[in-house]
C-alpha cells in the first residue's frame, strides 16, 4: 500500500488537471471492478459503484493537489504565476517545481543578503515571485510553457525516522491509496459490504470542493466518509490545543471543522468500531480547515457525513509529512465500518 501511496503522490494533479492521477487510479483498480461500474463525470470525478445491500455509502477522497498556474511570461523568460489552492508564500522561495509536460524550474527568491529590513519583516509575497525555468527570453519560455499551464512541487517520496512519510501531495493521495486498497479488498472478498457502496475519487477539492458537489449529486448518498489529511501543528514550540492533533496517535475522527459539523450518530458509530477493534484514534483539539464533506452534507437532500483524517505536518508544501500508523489506522477503520451494519438512526 505504501508503494501505491508513493506512486500516487508523485503523480501530477493540481486542481482541474487530475487526469494523470485518475489514469493511475484506474489502472490500479481496473482488474478489480466491473467494467461498467466506473464513471467519469463532467468535472473529472472517477466514481466507482461496488454494489452491496443497504443504505447508500459514499467513500470519498480527492485526487487533486495544490499547485501553480502560469499567468504571465516576462520578457526575460520568467513566469508570473498564481497559486491553485491555499499555499503559504513562506513555503515557496527557491523550491523546485515541475510542469505538466515535465519542464523543471525553481521559484525565484531574493537572497537574504539583498533583502531590505522591511522586506525581511514583511515576508515574501507571491506577486513578487516568478518561476525560473532557465529561459532567457519570452520566446524561449513560450516553447516550454504557456499561460494557463500548471506547475506543482517537484519533490521525492521518502520514508524516514520511525514510520514517517514525506512527499508532496500526500494530501490527499493517501485517501486515494486507501480507497484503491478497499476496492481490491471488496473484490477479494475481504469485506462483506453492508452498504450500497460508491467510491468517489474527486477533483477540485483544493479550490472549493466543486468535484464532490457534482459527485454527491450523482450518488445522492445516505452516508459519506471522507478520507483526508488534516493540517496540524505538531511541531516544537507549539503546545496544547494549537497542535490540533499528533502524528502517530491514530486516525482523527473529527466532530467539526470550519466547513462541517459532523453527524453525531455516524461519528459515534465509527468511534465505537475503532475502539472495539483497538484501532488507534484521536480527536482534533482545534477547529480549522474544511473538505469535501461540506458540500456532500448539504447537497441535494443532504447526507450524514464524517471525515477520517491522517494528521499532516507542513501540509500544502513540498514536504507533507504523515505517519504510517495513522495511514493504516484510517484504512482499517473504513474497512471495518463497511463490514458492519449501519448505525441505527436516532
Amino acid at each position: 500500500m505504501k508503494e501505491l501511496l508513493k506512486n500516487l503522490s508523485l503523480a501530477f494533479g493540481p486542481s482541474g488537471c487530475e487526469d494523470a492521477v485518475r489514469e493511475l487510479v484506474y489502472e490500479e483498480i481496473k482488474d478489480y471492478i466491473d467494467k461498467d461500474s466506473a464513471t467519469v463525470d463532467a468535472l473529472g470525478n472517477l466514481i466507482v459503484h461496488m454494489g452491496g445491500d443497504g443504505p447508500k455509502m459514499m467513500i470519498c477522497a480527492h485526487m487533486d493537489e495544490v499547485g501553480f498556474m502560469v499567468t504571465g511570461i516576462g520578457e526575460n523568460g520568467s513566469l508570473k504565476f498564481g497559486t491553485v489552492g491555499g499555499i503559504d508564500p513562506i513555503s515557496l522561495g527557491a523550491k523546485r517545481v515541475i510542469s505538466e509536460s515535465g519542464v523543471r524550474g525553481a521559484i525565484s527568491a531574493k537572497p537574504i543578503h539583498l533583502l531590505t529590513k522591511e522586506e525581511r519583516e514583511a515576508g515574501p509575497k507571491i506577486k513578487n515571485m516568478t518561476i525560473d525555468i532557465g529561459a532567457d527570453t519570452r520566446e524561449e519560455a513560450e516553447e516550454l510553457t504557456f499561460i494557463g499551464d500548471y506547475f506543482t512541487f517537484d519533490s521525492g517520496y521518502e520514508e524516514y525516522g520511525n514510520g514517517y512519510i514525506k512527499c508532496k501531495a500526500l494530501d490527499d493521495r493517501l485517501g486515494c491509496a486507501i480507497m484503491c486498497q478497499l476496492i481490491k479488498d471488496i473484490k477479494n472478498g475481504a469485506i462483506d459490504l453492508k452498504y450500497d457502496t460508491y467510491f468517489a475519487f474527486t477533483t477540485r477539492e483544493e479550490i472549493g470542493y466543486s468535484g464532490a458537489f457534482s459527485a454527491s449529486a450523482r450518488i445522492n448518498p445516505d452516508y459519506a466518509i471522507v478520507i483526508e489529511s488534516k493540517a496540524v501543528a505538531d511541531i516544537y514550540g507549539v503546545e496544547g490545543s494549537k497542535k490540533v492533533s499528533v502524528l502517530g496517535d491514530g486516525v482523527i475522527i473529527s466532530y467539526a471543522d470550519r466547513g462541517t459539523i459532523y453527524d453525531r450518530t455516524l461519528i459515534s458509530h465509527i468511534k465505537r468500531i475503532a475502539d472495539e477493534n483497538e484501532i488507534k484514534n484521536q480527536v482534533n483539539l482545534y477547529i480549522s480547515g474544511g473538505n469535501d464533506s461540506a458540500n456532500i452534507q448539504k447537497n441535494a437532500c443532504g447526507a450524514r457525513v464524517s471525515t477520517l483524517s491522517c494528521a499532516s505536518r507542513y501540509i500544502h508544501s513540498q514536504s507533507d509529512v504523515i505517519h504510517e500508523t495513522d495511514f493504516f489506522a484510517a484504512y482499517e477503520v473504513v474497512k471495518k465500518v463497511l463490514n458492519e451494519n449501519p448505525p441505527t438512526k436516532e
Partner: protein
Amino acid sequence: MRDLLKKLMYTPSVSGREDRVREVIYNEIKDYCDEISTDAMGNLIARKIGNGKKIMFCAHMDEIGFFATYITGDGDIKVSPVGGINTLSASHQCVVSESGVRGVLVPNSSKDKPKCEDMYIDIGAKNKKQAEKIVKIGDFFVCEPKLEKLQNQRYIGRPFDDRVGCAIMIDAIKKVKSENDLYFVFSVQEEVGGRGAKPAAFAIAPDYGIAIDVTMVGEKGGPGEMDVKLGRGCAIKIKDSSVISSPELVKKMREIAMDGKIKYQDEILPAGGTDASPMQIAGRGAKVSVISIPTAHIHTSCEMIDMFDVKEAVKLTVALAEKL
C-alpha cells in the same frame, strides 16, 4: 406563547446538535400535521397537505455557542465558536454544557474585544483529570438561557434567535386552515451559514419560501440607517446581505398584511442573512422573503424583543399560509 417560548429557549441546542429542541418541537406539533419527518441533516419537516401553492416556511432550531476543543492541565476548557459569537458580550457570562456542566467564560485578554481562541471556560475543576470526567472534546456550551419581562411588552433573554421563529411557526401550525400545500421546516445549522435549509428546500421544491427569523433594529445601538424599531409590528424583508427578496412575494405579503390589518415594517438589513438565501437558490430556485422579528442586541446574552411584534408575525404567517 410565553411558556412555549421559554420551553424552546431553555433547551440548549447549538448548530449540528439540534436533537433536543427538535424533540420538544416534534411533541408540540405532531398532532397538528399530516406528515412529519426528519431528514439526513436533522431538519424537522412538517406538512399540512393541500392542493394549492407549495409554501415552505422555515425557522432555524440551532443557536450560537461553543465547542469544547481542548482541556488544559489546569482543567480549563478551550473553546471554538459556533456561529457569530460576540466575545465582548460573552465574556464573564455563565455558560452551561450539553450535559449540564456549568462554568464561566473567561476572556483571558486585556483587549476590548477578546479573541475566542484566548478565551476559556472555568468549570471549577482542579485539574485536567477532574475536568475530563464531565466534559468531552466536542461537547457544546452555550451562554445560559434567560427570559425576563421588562416594561411594556418587552422581553430580554436568549436565544430569541431563532426560537422565537420556531414558536411563531408552532403557533401558526396550530391555527392555520388552508387549501395550500404547506411545509413547515425547523432547520438545522443556520448559524454556520444556512447549511440545513438547502437540502430541505431541495427536497420540497417550494413555490414560495418564507423564513421566519430575527432582524436588527435601527435603535438601541443597532445600525442607524435601518428603519425598523421594536414594537411597530413584524418586518417584511426586502433585502439583506445574503438575499434580495422576490418583489412579487413582498408585494403580496404587504397586501395580505394590509387586508388583515396586520402591523408590519419594511426591512432592509445592511448586514447578515437568513435561511431565505439557501431556499432561494436550492434546486430550481424559489420566490423567497422573510417575516422578521425586530430584535435588539442580537447574539448577546440579552437579546430584546417586543411581544406585540411576535403576535403580528404569527398573524402574518397564518394569513400568508391561507391567502398566498
